[in-house]
């Protein structure tokens, strides 16, 4: 077990270092001089040169990489060119929205998908299964902004239960803040749940044909008990894999939903940064997301080992 975990940990760390090099290299070769960008078009060559020196842009590449990477480790991402505030402050503000949103959406998606998957798998080919999988097909096919609009219409405009958009900030009270995240979370969760339910169903159906399911039935356990106690855990590996991928997506791929609900999230920050050529912000967020994805994969790898004892002996 320890050997397995240690190996995953080392691989994750190496991946992170490698990814940081790639990100840095891409930023290096991109056209555009940050100093000139900051000073505007009217600046003289001398002024630009001075700023370049101040920003350390004239130092050798390796040194600059080390400086930058060292900054990352101490959460010092540098200053935004356009806002002139530390990048970390910008990011912290946005993560306070994006992370809870992603977590709520992920939890919702899991809570919807697993029971639907179990329901469908246990009624394979019957009317209930066909209906549930039809709905899932719809969930995959319909774009989530349409869901979002429908939700706004139903719950915000018609029933007036929740605000239609915007984010009051966590200072406005936890409940108020959560309420404004609820609709976007549902809109994000539904398509993910549809995918996850299909994965859970097919994984379960495969497991239900295994010999050990028959053994469990021969013990006298009712079908439902066999399903939840024996089949589900064995079907978790593909489900966990998809969950990991979905979390990474939910953290940063939510720009459309953020726009529909007018939420100040990471997705919008990165979009703005790209349009404004605020490369240091782009660079920082990309690195942050890379780290998040690697961390999530590490967690998924660890949970594989928790679910499946056969992996624990592996190296």
């Amino acid at each position: 077990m320890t050997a397995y975990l240690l190996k995953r940990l080392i691989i994750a760390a190496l991946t992170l270092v490698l990814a940081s090099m790639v990100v840095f290299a891409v930023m290096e070769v991109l056209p555009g001089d940050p100093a000139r960008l900051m000073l505007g078009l009217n600046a003289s060559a001398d002024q630009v040169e001075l700023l370049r020196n101040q920003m350390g842009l004239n130092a050798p590449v390796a040194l600059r990489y080390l400086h930058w990477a060292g900054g990352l480790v101490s959460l010092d991402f540098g200053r935004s060119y356009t806002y002139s505030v530390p990048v970390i402050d910008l990011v912290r503000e946005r993560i306070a929205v994006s992370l809870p949103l992603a977590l709520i959406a992920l939890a919702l998606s899991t809570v919807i998908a697993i029971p639907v998957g179990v329901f469908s798998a246990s009624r394979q080919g019957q009317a209930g299964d066909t209906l549930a999988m039809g709905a899932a097909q719809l969930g995959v096919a319909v774009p989530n902004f349409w869901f979002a609009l429908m939700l706004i219409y139903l719950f915000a405009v018609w029933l007036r239960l929740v605000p239609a958009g915007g984010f009051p900030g966590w200072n406005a009270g936890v409940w108020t803040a959560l309420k404004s995240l609820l609709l976007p979370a549902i809109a994000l969760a539904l398509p993910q749940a549809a995918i996850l339910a299909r994965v859970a169903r097919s994984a379960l159906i495969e497991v239900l044909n295994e010999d050990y399911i028959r053994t469990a039935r021969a013990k006298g356990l009712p079908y439902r008990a066999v399903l939840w106690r024996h089949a589900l855990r064995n079907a978790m590996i593909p489900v966990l894999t998809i969950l990991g991928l979905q979390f990474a997506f939910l953290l940063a791929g939510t720009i459309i939903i953020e726009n529909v609900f007018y939420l100040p999230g990471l997705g919008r920050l990165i979009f703005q940064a790209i349009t404004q050529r605020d490369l240091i912000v782009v660079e920082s967020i990309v690195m942050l997301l890379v780290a998040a994805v690697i961390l999530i994969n590490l967690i998924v790898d660890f949970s594989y080992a928790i679910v499946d004892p056969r992996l624990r002996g592996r190296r």
Partner: protein
Amino acid sequence: MNLLEIDNLSLTIGDTPILKGVELTIAPGEVVGLVGESGSGKSMTALTIMRLLPHLARAEGRVAFDGIDILAATEDQMCALRGDDIGMVFQEPMTALNPVKTIGEQVAEGIRWHTRAGRAEAEERARKILDRVGLPEAKFPLSRYPHELSGGQRQRVVIAIACALKPKLLIADEPTTALDVVLQAQILDLLRDLVGENRMGLLLISHDLAVVTEMADRLTILRHGEVMEAGDTARTLSQQSHPYTRELALASMHVPARPKPHLAGSAKPLLEVEGVGRDYPGRRMSLFRPAQPIRAVDDVSLTIEPAQSVALVGRSGCGKSTLARMILALDKPTAGTIRFRGETITGKPEPALRPARRDMQVVFQDPYGSFDPRHKVEKLVAEPLHLLEKQPATAERREMVAHALDEVGLGPRDMDKYPHEFSGGQRQRLSIARAIITRPKLVVADEPVSALDVSIRAQILDLFAELNQKLGIAYLFITHDLTVARAMADEVLVMHEGRIVERGRTGDVLDHPRSEPARALVAAAPDLHRAIARRLQEQG
């Protein structure tokens, strides 16, 4: 009073009739054998008693267990019976246990479910039954997972699950078919003891007449869902009054005719294996110590002459398949050399191996898994032809395939079919056709008949014998089944823990084994003649 009474049981799945008017009774403490070839409805009979049939199955007739009408019982009543009064053991121990739960959990689960016992009490009882089936606490604590156990040990766990609550009836569906003969004998002994201890009824399902004869008081022979013959084991098998019973008995003892016996020492060897060994990296126990390698094959030497048939016998895990892979140059030995037709093949690069690959072909155990289901027979059988020096043209290739199919008793029309259109026996013929199409000098056959029914198996053995006589092909049979060795081999090699411990003429080794492992194999191997004789003697 009978424990189980099956009366005029018919079963259909969809529109396909599976069972037709099956009759069977079992009294407490009685062992009843249910014998038949694959597809005869043995397992479906068992699943009917458990009411674990597939969805579309419809059963009619009467199945009464201990006064309860099984076919009319509610699902709740069945759940109360399963695992408590009726236990069941299945064929494939490698997949019968849940891989993510400990053996303790899996044994205790049924106990907790039926007796409402607490966790501690259920685990204590699980411990007892595991001790009873031969898995003592010191080596097999409850916290072990199935993947840490061997096939035989896992089958003991399955038996522990089935017998934990001392059922009145145990159904064992081919419980030893996936195990080697020594393990088979141990598991059968265990079942016999459990029957004696608890006056349990045992329904033993098997395709192997010898196993059933050794175990069962009475037997029922099933064919295409119908009972052919039923009665006292010894009488039924000694009189063999029913033609199908006689057919089965003859097929299971079949020895193919080989009019031209092989004369040893007549030619220079075809295959020479000298001091071959194979190490696998072992599991590292500590970060600071290098892992101890596992020696799968240890200093093995042997020779095979042209047209000679040699059987390599041994228990599962003794290294015989590893040795076969090295002979076929599919795996590299860590020590020693292998020469084929005088040429060293160890350490040769792939292009230099082509002549050897052409002259040395293989037949695997599983006729289902060794063909790509998406290719037609013509392509599958022609596969080895790419090893020829001169590639045949399309027409010529078709002719060669047709010829090979003809030699194994299939028609030229079969060329355009897909593998799933053939039965198990026909598929094994296909793999033999594929093996002989390049006119090899040696065919390595890894358990070539152990997945086949006895009558099919007799036909395939005949085919092997015929090809040996006609084409002069030498064989290396890898098997744990001594009847195959006896039927087919001029010489027998006994392998044990990576070493060859005995070698000699087939009759000498099998009738007078000298080494301990060989004696154990011979003693454990079920033998129909011996079993019938013993039964008759017991009954006077």
